[in-house]
């Protein structure tokens, strides 16, 4: 049995909506066996890549062993708990023993920034675009690789009801896909970085890269493999959709027209978030508009998307990064509002004025 509290990442099945996954029997059976085996060890059936949203929020400074690259980046950077990049096998070994190596990001000296990204010169209105956070994540992954970086000039307030957490989720998830980022500091926002000096190594200089709008735009464009035109689907919630994202989506769909019936709209989330968002009235408008809710798994790891889908719009930089290889389809990155507008129109609708 596990020796410490242990939550579970997504599996390959949606246990709440079993008809949605089109995997063959062999894969379904193997997936179910794996999920059951972890639960039998005493792990909690949270089935989410974003346990930090509701299921499990470790206190700052506590030592944890997390796998799942986006969750590693979030728990280190945004919650200020400490984990190294643990992969398959080592994660469950840490759960069973309650121990991790006294090394890597568990140690103070390895949590210092080796690189600074100066974002202070970016146009302020860009920060209102989800795509800017995904693009910055892509750039961070490219520039930092597996190094710890500090970002300056990035706005945010972790007590704002979820918006900043959602943005940093996108940033970290994309950075952990495009690179091997396990920890980043947003100066003035994240808990270990009240100011830049707090996260610089005591012994000297680190390089600074100035991030300007053309670089960010190029990073954004790398996350789309299709330029525009018709879309067949929209995929939201990689990493899993949060309660505050459901609130925003509910507002965006509002009383407006439903989605075009040729466009399949998927929202991946955890059962805990689905329950809470449903209780608050955010799920019903989304379902009424035509979206399908996926729990316990994700549209990029298991066959959920219906056959014939070729071009998919997403607000998730991580989904945009992996889907062309995992699913063999084209992606278009857009903000949540652009995804809703595009789902209604059946084609890519993006507002380029912010980026001009």
């Amino acid at each position, binding site marked *: 049995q596990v020796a410490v509290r242990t939550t579970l990442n997504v599996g390959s099945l949606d246990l709440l909506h079993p008809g949605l996954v089109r995997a063959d029997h062999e894969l379904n059976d193997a997936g179910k066996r794996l999920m059951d085996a972890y639960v039998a060890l005493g792990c909690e059936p949270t089935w989410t890549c974003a346990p930090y949203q509701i299921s499990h929020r470790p206190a700052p400074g506590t030592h944890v062993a997390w*796998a*799942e*690259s986006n969750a*590693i980046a979030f728990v280190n950077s945004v919650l200020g708990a400490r984990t*190294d*990049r*643990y*992969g*398959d*096998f*080592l*994660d469950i070994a840490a759960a069973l023993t309650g121990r991790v190596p006294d090394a*890597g990001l568990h140690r103070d000296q390895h949590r210092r920034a080796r690189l600074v990204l100066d974002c202070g010169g970016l146009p302020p209105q860009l920060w209102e675009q989800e795509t800017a956070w995904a693009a910055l994540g892509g750039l961070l*992954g490219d520039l930092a*690789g*597996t190094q710890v970086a500090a970002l300056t000039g990035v706005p945010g307030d972790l007590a704002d009801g979820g918006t900043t957490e959602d943005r940093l989720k996108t940033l970290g998830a994309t950075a*952990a*896909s*495009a*690179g*091997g980022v396990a920890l980043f500091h947003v100066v003035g926002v994240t808990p270990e970085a009240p100011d830049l000096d707090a996260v610089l190594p005591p012994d000297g200089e680190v390089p600074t890269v100035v991030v300007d709008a053309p670089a960010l735009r190029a990073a954004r464009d*790398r996350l789309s*493999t299709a330029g525009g035109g018709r879309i067949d689907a929209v995929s939201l919630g990689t990493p899993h959709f949060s309660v505050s994202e459901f609130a925003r989506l509910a507002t965006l769909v509002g009383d407006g027209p439903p989605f075009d019936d040729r466009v399949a709209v998927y929202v991946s989330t955890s059962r805990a978030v689905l329950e809470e968002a449903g209780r608050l009235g955010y799920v019903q408008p989304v379902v009424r508009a035509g979206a399908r809710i996926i729990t316990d798994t994700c549209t990029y790891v298991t066959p959920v998307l219906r056959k014939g889908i070729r071009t998919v719009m997403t607000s998730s930089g991580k989904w945009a*990064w*992996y889907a*062309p*290889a*995992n699913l063999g389809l084209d992606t278009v990155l857009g903000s949540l509002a652009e995804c809703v507008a595009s789902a209604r129109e059946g084609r890519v609708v993006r507002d380029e004025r912010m980026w001009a």
Partner: protein
Amino acid sequence: MTSECGRDLSGRVLHPGAAAGELLVLDAPLSFWGGVDPAGRVVDVHHPQHGDVLAGRVVAMPSGRGSSSSSSVLAEQIRTGSAPAAVLMAEADGIVVLGALVAAELYGRSMPIVQVAPDVLAALPRRGHVEVRAEDGSGPGLVRIDLNRGAGGA
């Protein structure tokens, strides 16, 4: 030792084993999960070596990238024979090494991983036949590159 037809390198053994194959130099880090298909082909559309096949090659890469599930993907590729013959990397990556460790334990197949200095990795030729001898213990891993036996080489 360097000669006209070959060169020897040494590095730190991250995982033991002995293997040989054609060199494949990756110009960017690679995530085995989401980056490589079951046949060992690079499917990450963002990767400079997109389309190249890792199976049976001695793969030189700067570091790991991306998914923490790369360990199990690599272990499975070692089991099925679609993994690299050996890996040379500049930055020790626990997730890649763990995949090799688990495959050795479960399947008895040992894929050597040798860490070489970043400047050594950067100066590797683009092709050549490589023999890797990485012995368990504290000794250095030896990497012998024979330029004359490279695929399509002279």
